[in-house]
């Protein structure tokens, strides 16, 4: 498959195949792949680059999964560094941000698979946050956690989602997808839900009218074929449900985990993956450059390699920083806007569901 054939398909809006994706990954010139992805990026979004004001809460790092890729989890509650927030402690984190004057619009919650917590811990957590800030959007619990709840509490996935939604859940984050391949999951996260189960949780959520994100953790043991097949799996579900809002490429971070002897993906590989994702996932509206994971410089550059979203202000991020991320713990909206503008893009503040937007006025920038 030649690059020019792939480029022709992109220009005519023809969905790309596995062979096309591999050709993009193997093309020797990153600049050409990036330039092509930028065509699609600007077709969808012109020079707009989105971000929001969000707070991350990790209720617990106690986790039964013991994934080799993870630097965050502790196997049991007595292990050094293990924690479980009370509902009040978690709500206080939001209260502190509000009291500090932050106009947070989203709370992002992910945590370990803790088999010692009652289900109502999670519903009380959601309702507590909503009681404090009724207008806030809660994006919580990856598909891995939802499937764990299904197993742990003996309820169908649909019932789990309905109960969580009744308590305040608005949408699902995209984590836990890793690579949607049985071989890879067996190698790096054998105790997590399988690829089909991850997809099924999102399918159910979408059928219930909930939106979600999707991710790909790359740079562990997967092949390029498996990466592209992963993207095709996501595209197929999106064609069926239309429920994904954004795709987030997540480079593996090797510090403090059982895969630490592997090198992290380089910046060139990160940019290429952003670009390939933009080109393969023609039906997913947004590609997110999650600056916490990518690093600020790479994330900013990614805004020309397919990405149109910078994620958010993010405070309290723990998962990537425990895996060696060197990025700051949080960014102000002004700092994000300035960085987006310095990239030659127009910063647009959004809500979680990309339903409300406000163009950030240049005069507000730092």
């Amino acid at each position: 498959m030649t690059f020019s054939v792939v480029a022709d398909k992109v220009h005519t809006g023809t969905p790309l195949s596995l062979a096309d994706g591999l050709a993009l990954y193997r093309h020797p010139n990153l600049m050409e792949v990036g330039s092509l992805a930028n065509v699609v990026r600007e077709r969808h979004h012109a020079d707009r680059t989105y971000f929001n004001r969000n707070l991350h809460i990790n209720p617990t790092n106690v986790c039964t999964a013991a994934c080799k890729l993870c630097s965050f989890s502790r196997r049991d509650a007595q292990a050094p560094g293990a924690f479980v927030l009370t509902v009040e402690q978690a709500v206080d984190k939001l209260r502190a941000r509000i009291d500090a004057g932050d106009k947070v619009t989203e709370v992002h919650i992910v945590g370990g698979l803790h088999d010692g917590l009652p289900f109502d811990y999670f519903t009380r957590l959601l309702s507590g946050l909503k009681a404090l800030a009724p207008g806030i959007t809660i994006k919580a619990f990856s598909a891995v956690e939802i499937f764990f709840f299904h197993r742990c509490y003996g309820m169908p996935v649909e019932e789990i989602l309905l109960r969580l939604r009744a308590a305040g859940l608005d949408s699902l984050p995209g984590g836990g997808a890793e690579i949607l391949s049985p071989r890879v999951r067996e190698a790096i996260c054998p105790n997590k839900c399988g690829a089909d189960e991850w997809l099924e949780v999102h399918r159910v959520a979408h059928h219930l009218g909930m939106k979600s994100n999707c991710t790909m953790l790359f740079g562990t043991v997967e092949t390029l074929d498996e990466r592209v097949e992963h993207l095709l799996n996501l595209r197929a579900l999106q064609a069926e449900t239309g429920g994904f809002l954004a795709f987030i490429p997540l480079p593996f971070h090797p510090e403090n985990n059982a895969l630490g002897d592997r090198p992290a993906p380089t910046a060139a590989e990160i940019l290429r993956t952003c670009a390939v994702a933009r080109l393969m996932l023609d039906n997913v509206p947004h590609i997110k450059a999650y600056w916490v994971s990518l690093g600020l410089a790479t994330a900013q550059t990614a805004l020309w390699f397919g990405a149109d979203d910078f994620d958010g202000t993010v405070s309290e991020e723990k998962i990537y920083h425990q895996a060696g991320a060197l990025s700051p713990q949080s960014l102000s909206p002004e700092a994000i806007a300035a960085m987006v503008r310095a990239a030659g893009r127009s910063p647009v503040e959004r809500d979680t569901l990309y339903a409300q937007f406000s163009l950030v006025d240049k005069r507000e920038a730092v």
Partner: protein
Amino acid sequence: MNAENDADIFGLGRAALAASHSAFAGKAFFVGSRLLQPDSTWLGPSDAVAAIVEEDDLVKVGGLSAARYAGANTLLCQLTSGGLAREAIGLGMRCLVRVPYAAGESPSLRSQRLEQLAALLRQISSIDGIVPTPTGEALGLDTVQFVAACRLASVAFHVVVDLERLGHKLGQLCLSFGADELLGSIVNQRALRLGAHASSNAITRDEAVLLVRAAGFVPCERLAEGRVQAL
């Protein structure tokens, strides 16, 4: 505006990359460094090939000859220091010129600086390379665009990435925008990026090779006495 920016960024990148390939035949270099500090102690691995002294530290270390006597073999000097560059080259040192840039500065200021650089390189052709150097926080796109401009202003010279200032991710991206050499602390075994090492930009030799190769270049390591080994 988008098409214009697109042409700027990708057009600039393509031109700079082509210039780099033309000058160095698809090779990119890396070299481990240590730094002579103002108190005359060395910072960095003792077996580093590049033993650097910064122009700003010369007075405190007793001058260029004293630095040379202490083992410095590379001078990092300022754009305005042509005389010092000549002196260092006369002492058998490798001379690299720092070219400053700052986020948000005017394009005309940058153009003036690049013209100044081109003039210096015309006057002293034995300067071996230039080091684009941020004077504040290094933003991603701003940096790669400036690196590309530096490459196009100094086609036959090495455009060297200071990994200590830019970090390995942005440093690698610079290779795709015309840089051809990585300069930084190269260690046998990197400490975990935790505690005192949380912000360390030291990399291992294998990581340096990976950065260069993953950017699409043939990695070449600078060894002692000016030798270069392709890997």
